[in-house]
């Protein structure tokens, strides 16, 4: 599930969203989303703020990461 989402600067000077994931087995990972991907994730999760992403299933990311 999504543990946290934090705004961070990207290589090109644009803000990116770093999403921290925690899997059922305890493993953790981070995925970095560009602006459009972050918007898609917010929409898919019907989230109005990044705080509302917390607890969402990690599978939400599969959709937004599709090319």
């Amino acid at each position, binding site marked *: 599930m999504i543990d946290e989402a934090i705004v961070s*600067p990207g290589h090109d*000077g*644009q*803000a990116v969203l*770093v999403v921290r994931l925690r899997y059922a087995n305890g493993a953790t990972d981070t*995925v970095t989303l560009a602006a459009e991907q972050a918007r898609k994730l917010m929409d898919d999760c019907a989230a*109005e703020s990044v705080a509302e992403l917390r607890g969402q299933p990690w599978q939400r990311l599969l959709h937004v990461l599709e090319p």
Partner: protein
Amino acid sequence: MLDILVKNGRIVDGSGLPAFSGDVAIAGGRLVQVGGQLSAEARTEIDAAGRVVAPGFIDPHTHFDAQLLWDGQARPALEHGVTTVVHGNCSLSLAPLKVEHRARLVKMFQQIEEMPDAAFQGAFEWTWESFGDYVAALRGRVALNVAPLAGHTPIRMWVMGADAQKRAAKPDEIRDMQDLLRECLEAGAVGLSTSYVDMDENFAPVPSRHAHYDELDALSAVLGEYGRMLQVVPEFYNTDVTVARVDQLAELSLAHGIPTTFSPLFDSSVVPDNVPRVLERVAEQFARGARVWPQVQTRPIDISFSLDMASLYFIQLPMWYMLLRMPRAQKLALLGNEGTRKGLIDAAEPGGDTQRFAGLRVRDSQDASLIGRTLGEIAKERGTTPAGALLDLSLAEDLGVHFLAARMGHEDPRRIGPILANDLVHVGASDGGAHIQSFATYGDTGYLFSEFVRKGRHLSLEHAVRKITGDTAQIWGIGDRGLLRPGLAADVVIFDPDTIGRADELPARDMPEGGMRYVRGARGVGAVIVNGEVTWTAEGGYTDARPGVVAHA
């Protein structure tokens, strides 16, 4: 008679050895003597008392491919002491390139490196298809040396046409790519660049991303025939995948005896274990004998935005973010509404806490007096709050004002200093000439000295000079540069070690057709000599000399 005699300097020769006092003599484009006191006659004498005399700086990651054709001085890189640039990074080069592929490739350049139309159209004449003819177009035009990479993307386009962006290559196509790369290397390419990340203007993966491992392996075999570099953009936004790419590059390096380098690699408080984990794997691979050089930039990363776009900078302020995502007309109407304005300000400055936006700076505005000032200062002057100033300034210029949130990443010198000092870290990744309408990609060398030598003392003067001269030349196999040694090319920079640095970032309208870009001038650099000719001085500015050469041609 000598051409140039630099007297009484503090010589830092690029090897990392301690500085020593003496003169530097130059004749016929070469260093004749380094050290000692000379009394020979010279056409030009430069008094370097109190200043450092060092090899010219080498910038290994730039995108000056097009700019060099209409600005052979790569301004303002040269005035920072940069005397050699590697361009053609990230799978993108302007050669080899068939006429029918020009428009496609230019679109990719514009999308990935954020370069405007005018940089490619009308500013120069396209006279080449082959790499050799591109190199010929640069000759006599450049004031600094160039070490162009051949881009994997145009190589694929040349051989595969439109299929380059659709599928893996067949064996005969891979053989054709090998032959084409061999031609490029014969003509002076310093290596091959590829990317696992970049997207074109339609958000489709660029051609290099369709290559399977066997294709990169075959191309690396050709690089091995010449001992040239493979440059890669890995999936830098994911540590695990970057580590896997380090392993892959190590296999190619060991199999073909080639150096490899990847960029960018940068630090962030949000993913603090990224750089340590990647460097740990790099060290393991170097211990096996592989050469996998991570490039790390010196400058911090800023976030820039205007209210015209929905930057993620506002994602923690739901009301702002939702409003900024609206269609432009609706957005403008709401921003002009008094109730909405009050709501936005209350959300950004709860309980009157104005800290959130107070430190933001105006990057670009039609009102030049605002540029560089903080919203806190402007708000105080205008009797409003920083959030109010942000809204007022934006509305006054139809959302055209750009703002800067400075030092948002790669910003902690206590973390960055030791990274830059690491012997396995290649100081680079400036991206010179790219992203020009977002931030200035010049002055990273000055920042190395001001922040990490003088202020943080993470590197000695000699170490810092070595990092951007002798080390860079050795990593890239540019054999006759990077050191001050008799017989080597006379690329020299003279600077004041107490003041060298980068000036403030400013918008400039000096692109072809008056286009805007961000630039930074140099501080503390006195003179820049390329192949024995003075190309820039602090007193006189740029000269007419065009002594640059193609490093491997």
